[in-house]
């Protein structure tokens, strides 16, 4: 990329890629001006990641051309991409966790058969890069000891160390707190000032608005629009993404909470290593309200769901629910909790919510398979199962409405509907619901949110765990924030905004105030 006259750092022409029957990318054209931050936005499954993988040489396009700095290039492997100055920060970091930062950075760019020279040179070069781009990291720290925000910086340093002039970030804020995300945006800005072209792939409108110069929208494998960020807004982009008008807020009345449906006192849980993962958590759920648990993932939310639903026994504390007191001694397993009318939509539908090899009508009764409704004298009553499944598929608009389709072959949104319908249709008193819309497209999100609110209005207590702040804020009546296994705050949903919640999630509210609010 010597002296070229092209104003574009990268240009794609008619890129198409097909995986079997799925057309992941179709005739994609894209021009990214050099030295800008360019957003690629689209729903899950719109083909963003495939497109970036093609640019980074993970896949080869079936047809189409890629120009880098005005030169036609043939990118067949990641090695080629690196040679053409393209660096990528993957959604799941590509770091060797028990290596130091330095070792991770030099991996693949060691500069000789012996390590010593390469490591010394890298140490020097990293010092320079850190200063130039404001990317402070302790190069001798072991990666697994670093918080995710810093791990991401290591990924960026890795790309820069290889001389990347075009940096692609795939869903960069998925694992970050809002504060860490803001810091990332500042880093991107200084990268831009130094002439690096940045491409961000995301499905979050907030980030696009906050950090990009231009934005391209993808839908169903195609590029549907290009906009200058300053001349568009969230609503227009959302509409372009889905192809129809969507509401970003959930329509709901004021909650009318009545009696306490479940109360938990000082719940604690220790994992196999003896680490206290759940720290004296107390909470109350009232019938007719939705309580949201906000927190960066991995701060005890999953453990709380497991403890409440009976999947893991308590180490300490007690749960009062429907006349029972559940303690470390008086255990109830998940099936007994179900009998007490507690329903649970697990966070990970593939691992815990479904047996992906089962057909839909079988998956639709999992956990309730001993119920009289589905059993004949000896065998399962297949007809009852099928009738029930057909009925639910109609009611919940599951597509395709085929009870014999393996659950693995439904889209994420439809799989989730199968799981939620299964739990809700048993008429529980309390519904625990984890990440209800993870990997679900916007149309289905709306649908699921409506159903959750409907359930609340019919007098059920709902505990919602989600890493999507928007979702927590839109659905909840009360919000409880967890950090490091403990409840660190509670706030009425009406008073919650992203900034306050973000600070609570990082447990930094107090520090922040004393530091004078620099975020």
């Amino acid at each position, binding site marked *: 990329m010597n002296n070229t006259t092209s104003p574009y750092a990268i240009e794609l022409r008619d890129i198409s890629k097909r*995986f079997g029957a799925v057309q992941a990318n179709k005739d994609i054209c894209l021009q990214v001006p050099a030295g800008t931050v360019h957003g690629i936005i689209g729903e899950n499954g719109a083909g963003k*990641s*495939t497109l*970036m*993988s093609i640019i*980074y040489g*993970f*896949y080869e396009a079936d047809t189409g051309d890629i120009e880098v700095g005005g030169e036609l290039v043939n990118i067949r*492997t*990641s*090695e*080629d*991409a*690196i040679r053409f100055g393209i660096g*990528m920060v*993957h959604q*799941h970091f*590509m*770091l*060797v*966790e*028990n*290596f130091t930062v330095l*070792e*991770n950075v*030099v*991996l*693949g*760019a*060691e500069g*000789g*058969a*012996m*390590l*010593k020279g*390469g490591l010394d040179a890298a140490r020097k070069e990293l010092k320079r890069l850190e200063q130039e781009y404001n990317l402070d990291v302790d190069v001798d720290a072991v990666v697994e000891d670093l918080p995710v925000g810093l791990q991401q910086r290591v990924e960026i340093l*890795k790309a820069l160390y290889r001389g990347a002039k075009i940096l692609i970030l795939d869903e960069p804020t998925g694992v970050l707190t809002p504060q860490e995300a803001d810091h990332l945006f500042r880093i991107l800005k200084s990268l831009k000032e130094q002439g690096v072209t940045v491409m961000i792939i995301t499905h979050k409108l907030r980030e696009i608005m906050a950090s990009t110069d231009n934005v391209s929208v993808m839908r169903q494998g195609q590029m549907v629009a290009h906009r200058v960020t300053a001349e568009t807004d969230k609503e227009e982009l959302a509409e372009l993404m889905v192809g129809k008008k969507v509401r970003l807020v959930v329509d709901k009345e004021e909650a009318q909470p009545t009696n306490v449906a479940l109360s938990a006192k000082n719940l604690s849980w220790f994992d196999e290593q003896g680490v206290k993962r759940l720290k004296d958590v107390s909470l109350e759920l009232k019938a007719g309200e939705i309580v949201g648990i906000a927190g960066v993932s991995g701060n005890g939310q999953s453990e709380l769901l497991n403890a409440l639903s009976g999947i893991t026994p308590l180490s300490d504390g007690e749960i009062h629910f429907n006349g029972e007191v559940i303690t470390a001694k008086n255990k109830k397993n998940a099936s007994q909790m179900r009998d007490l009318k507690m329903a649970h939509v697990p966070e990970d539908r593939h691992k815990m919510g479904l047996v992906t090899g089962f057909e839909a009508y079988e998956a639709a009764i999992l956990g309730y398979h001993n119920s009289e409704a589905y059993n004949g004298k000896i065998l399962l009553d297949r007809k009852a199962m099928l009738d029930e499944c057909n009925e639910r598929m109609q009611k919940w608009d599951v597509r395709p409405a085929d009870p014999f389709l393996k659950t693995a072959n439904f889209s994420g949104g439809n799989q989730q509907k199968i799981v939620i319908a299964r739990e809700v249709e048993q008429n529980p008193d309390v519904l625990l619901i984890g990440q209800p819309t993870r990997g679900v497209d916007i149309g289905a999100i709306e649908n699921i949110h409506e159903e959750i609110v409907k359930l609340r209005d019919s007098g059920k207590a709902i505990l919602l765990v989600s890493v999507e702040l928007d979702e927590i804020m839109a659905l909840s009546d009360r919000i409880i924030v967890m950090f490091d296994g403990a409840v660190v705050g509670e706030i009425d949903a009406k008073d919650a905004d992203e900034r306050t919640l973000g600070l609570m999630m990082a447990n930094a509210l107090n520090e922040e105030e004393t530091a004078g609010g620099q975020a």
Partner: protein
Amino acid sequence: MFETLILILDATLRVSTPLILAALAGLFAERSGIVDIGLEGKILGAAFAAAAAAAVFGSAWIGLLFAIIASVALALIHGFACITHRGDHIVSGVAINTIVAGLTVTLGLDWFSQGGQTPALTGDARFTSITFPFADALADVPVIGLIYSELLSGHNILVYLAFAIVPFAVWIIYKTRFGLRLRAVGENPHAVDTAGISVAFIRYRAMIICGILCGLAGAYLSTAHNAGFLKDMSAGKGYIALAALIFGKWRPVPVMFACLLFGFLDAVAVRMQGVQVPGIGEVPVQAIEVLPYVLTVLLLAGFIGKAVAPKAVGRPYVKERG
């Protein structure tokens, strides 16, 4: 008493040698992410190849060469199944062990007609012991003399080679580019792939090294420690080596010490045979021989520190669909 101890330690060195070679072989394989339960089969195959070639050509060195060729070929078969075809590492390894156990005897019968054994090796067809200078002269010096002439001197070249390979392996794994990539590929192959390095190529190279080391271990058994091939002569050494690999937490020097410990137990077991221990009576040899496995189980159960395997070990590498 001191002399007995020296004799036991001397035997320890001899029985530890194939363990060290095999455990290092396993170390290279597992550090790259390949589980190699087929160490046993490679050792046995190499032992047969070494004895057969040494018998035919009359040279231990040619025997060694054939041992390495046979063992590397088996390692590459394992690699082909596990790396290229993403097969199950255990299934492939067990298949190799089973095939080799049968094939060596069958070929032995066909070629040499001695009940599956190879002809007894003599002279240059065996690796003989190397006596250090002045070993005899110093033998009578108290303490040092015994250590020098009995313990250190008088082993064959493969013994010294095995111990020399340990620091060499440390150097390769921690100081070279190949070592860095090897460690990375066993932990997170995706990171290696996205850094523009071929995961498969590194793993194949690791398997070749694994094959060479198993070749040395096999040749040691049939052309140095013994004088010919016997049916099933590897006698579980491949499995003990794997245990030592875990016991040594996948690091060369601790692995060597684990092998020495297991070798020592073996040497003690041999010594204890038929010996009446006051108050206890005769200690069954099996009770001592089982100790390596018991210790390894205790380690895995978390009673003696913690053994953390390379994270990606045993998992075929598949590029993620984005």
